[in-house]
């Protein structure tokens, strides 16, 4: 079985203005959405109020959650805590005039309606301080990662033009994922952060495979026009690019539909990222390198140079 029985010959370089346009529109839309709507940050980032309650009998977590929502607490987290009688409740921040005593009274009413003899512990309002710090550390880690990748590609492929293409293509994908999460206001929690990292990994993987083919094509055909070489390289790896993505998508779709609510955001982010990553590797990475003026001379400055390793 094969997706492309014959060698494909799509003119990716000729139509690159169109793909730039599409990407630009999507990226701008993402930024606009991020600026106006923001992300619906999960409790991991926002903090909120937490309280622990002890019931006289095993507590029905779902029932408590439903009653809290009905009272006007959006998106509460209700969990068993230690024993079936202990319940821990986490509430997102209730707007700027968050008032501990008001929340407590409302909470008490709800919990007493479930079990009149419930014992409610102290209400702690947790600040978002750590969330903010994680954000800074994540941004630092990502910047350092992109820099390291940039340098590695320069070393392996001898040109910053390909590095730039790779970095732009890689940046493209998390922005779109964040954009979609902002637009749909899906809860953005730490699992989604992990998914975004995985997306960066996938996109990079694809891009490097295409670059490897570009290097090989330039090696055997120094005289052909760069645009033609890039088109050939993308077309020749197209079957593999799509095949790999389909395989990964199988796992992700299984997680999306069967993984339960905790993995939903995570798998959604992965799925969006895989689509965006495939697009950016095919349409953006090599095109950017071409517009940076990539020629065979950049990858093989001297005529005779063995660039492909021969290891097992």
């Amino acid at each position: 079985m094969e997706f492309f029985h014959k060698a494909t010959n799509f003119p990716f370089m000729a139509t690159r203005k169109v793909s730039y346009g599409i990407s630009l529109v999507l990226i701008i839309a993402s930024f606009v959405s991020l600026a106006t709507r923001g992300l619906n940050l999960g409790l991991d980032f926002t903090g909120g109020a937490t309280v622990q309650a002890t019931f006289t009998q095993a507590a029905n977590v779902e029932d408590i959650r439903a009653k809290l929502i009905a009272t006007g607490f959006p998106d509460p987290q209700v969990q068993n805590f230690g024993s079936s009688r202990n319940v821990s409740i986490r509430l997102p921040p209730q707007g700027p005039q968050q008032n501990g005593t008001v929340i407590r009274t409302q909470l008490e009413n709800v919990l007493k309606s479930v079990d009149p003899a419930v014992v409610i512990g102290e209400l702690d309002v947790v600040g978002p301080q750590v969330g903010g710090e994680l954000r800074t550390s994540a941004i630092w880690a990502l910047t350092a990662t992109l820099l390291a990748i940039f340098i590695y590609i320069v070393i392996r492929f001898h040109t910053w033009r390909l590095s730039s293409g790779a970095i732009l293509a890689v940046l493209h994908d998390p922005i779109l994922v964040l954009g979609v999460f902002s637009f749909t206001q899906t809860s953005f929690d730490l699992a989604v952060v992990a998914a975004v990292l995985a997306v960066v990994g996938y996109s990079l993987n694809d891009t490097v495979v295409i670059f490897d083919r570009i290097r090989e094509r330039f090696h055997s055909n120094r005289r052909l026009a760069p645009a033609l070489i890039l088109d050939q390289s993308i077309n020749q790896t197209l079957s593999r690019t799509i095949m790999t993505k389909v395989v990964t998508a199988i796992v992700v779709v299984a997680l999306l539909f069967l993984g339960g609510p905790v993995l939903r955001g995570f798998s959604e982010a992965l799925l969006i990222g895989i689509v965006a990553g495939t697009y950016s590797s095919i349409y953006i990475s090599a095109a950017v390198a071409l517009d940076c003026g990539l020629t065979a001379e950049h990858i093989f400055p001297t005529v005779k140079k063995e660039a492909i390793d021969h290891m097992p």
Partner: protein
Amino acid sequence: MLEYARWKYILICAVLAIALLLCMPTLFGQDEALQIATRDRTAIPSAVQADMEKYLREKAVTFTKTYLDNGVLMVRLPNVAEQLKARDSIEDKYSQGYVTALSFAPRMPEWMRKLGLRPIPLGLDLRGGLYLLYQVDVQGAVKQLLEGYEQDIRRALTTAKLPLNDVTTITDPQTAQTVGLRVSLPAGTDVDQVRAIVAKTVPDFTVSTVTLPSGQAVEGRLPQAKIRERQDYAIQQNLTTLRNRVNELGVAEPIVQRQGLDRINVQLPGVQNSAEVKDVLGKVAKLEFRLDDLNGNAYEVAQHGHAPIGTKLYYTKDGQPLLLRREVIATGDELTTANFTTTQDGPTVNVRLDQRAGDRMLKATQANLNHPMAVVYIESRRETVTVNGQKTTRDVTDQKVINNATIRGVFSNNFMITGMTAGEARDLALLLRSGSFAVPIYPVEEHAVGPSLGKENIEKGVDALEIGMAGVFLFMAIYYRIFGLVADVVLLANVVLLTALLSMLGAALSLPGIAGIILTVGMAVDANVLIYERIREELRNGVSPQASIRAGFEKAFSAIFDSNFTAFIAGVVLWILGSGPIRGFAVVLTLGIATSMFTSLMGSRALITLMYGGRRKPARLLI
């Protein structure tokens, strides 16, 4: 014909065999368990084990088995409901002398346990427990060091009969970090001589002379490397102390690790009783032995607030003022052991001092027979207070005299401290035993994660992952036929290897780790796809089957290597710089790339060579 070195086959088989053994415990799975330990950390006698078994049966709790593991009683239970029931029952009757923790017990056979094999520990998000994040006061570590240097410099200058106005600390305006000392000098002082003495006293300082509006001064700055070294030392020391304390608590599979520059995170799986744990873990306690000062009147000093020179005012637990001499005979850092016992004087901590402190104690008690001596307990903590609706934190140090008794006989390094309740004595012994923190630590974040949610999470996630993987296997077999089946075998081997590595390292698996596994599976599939697509390309160009296989592996290598190595770099950087979920992801990704490179390149080549490598050339390939 295709050839593949024999040693490579042997290597692959050996690695796979070891990996299979290592991941066996994980494959056997774990049972819910209840862990019961005595409050004073003594071993549970088997009589009590029999009692508890009988009691649990009376309460109609179904349990699989109970056994003693290092003096801790483990009760294996069939499900969470029984686990919670068992815990509630035990706590109702035995909460006096025993602590319980919800835990897991591996289902593997006894001989595996004896070999020291362990299943992959699950992260808190997957199994529940207590998560604590502590901030280490690294600035304080540098300040402490500088305070010592200040004393040294003052002493050296006094010895050299050189005058000085003041010694102040230098703060870096950008980082707000204390970086050195400034010795301001009166006019006419020999600045160069002072400079030489400062440089000689503190060799670590970079010394310079500055002219300030107020006059000449000598500045000594610590190089950034020295500051970092000092901070690292403080964190390492605090890590050790925290680890000791966690071990004293007897929690199964605790994780205590440094996080970022100045934080330590502690994960205690199964522990839900946060109050007690937090109390013991985070306590910054010091102990000082001082002689009473009998000349001054403590009550007068308490009213006027001026303690005579050489004395300091303290309060006892009952709030009585007490004047003590400034010099400290011994501190809690100089202890070698501390045990809790009960004597006729009530709860007692049995203390043994090290040699130097023992000598000082001997001298002090010889010279001061029938003179009272006090034990001062110093505790630092950070309080959150609400001022005008704003939450602010402030550091509080409590100092109180826990014991003040007349020296009845001469003693040196072995003695007892009394005058506390049983709980206080027990905690004090534990704190003294585990050592004190080099610099204070403060909790930044703490929360408990419910285990029932974790259980549901992991079951659904694992089911979905298995179904997804099955889909991938099927798809590969259809798309690449025989070669697809080879890829499936290789993928399976990759998962086995990764599981083995993770359980060997004892790195806890969390939700982001699962993301890493999915990415790794994707990359492993990708490596095979790259090879097979290359083989197909060669076949399309009319190359013979065996030559196509060889060319496929060789030409795909650079693409596989580069794409994997780029991801590997990303993984390593994220591992080093990331924290929490990002690190969890990076660990699995980095290890997974290593295993998938091994299995895809070596494993699949070995298999394919076995199948198609013979002298009889295959007419066509099923690809």
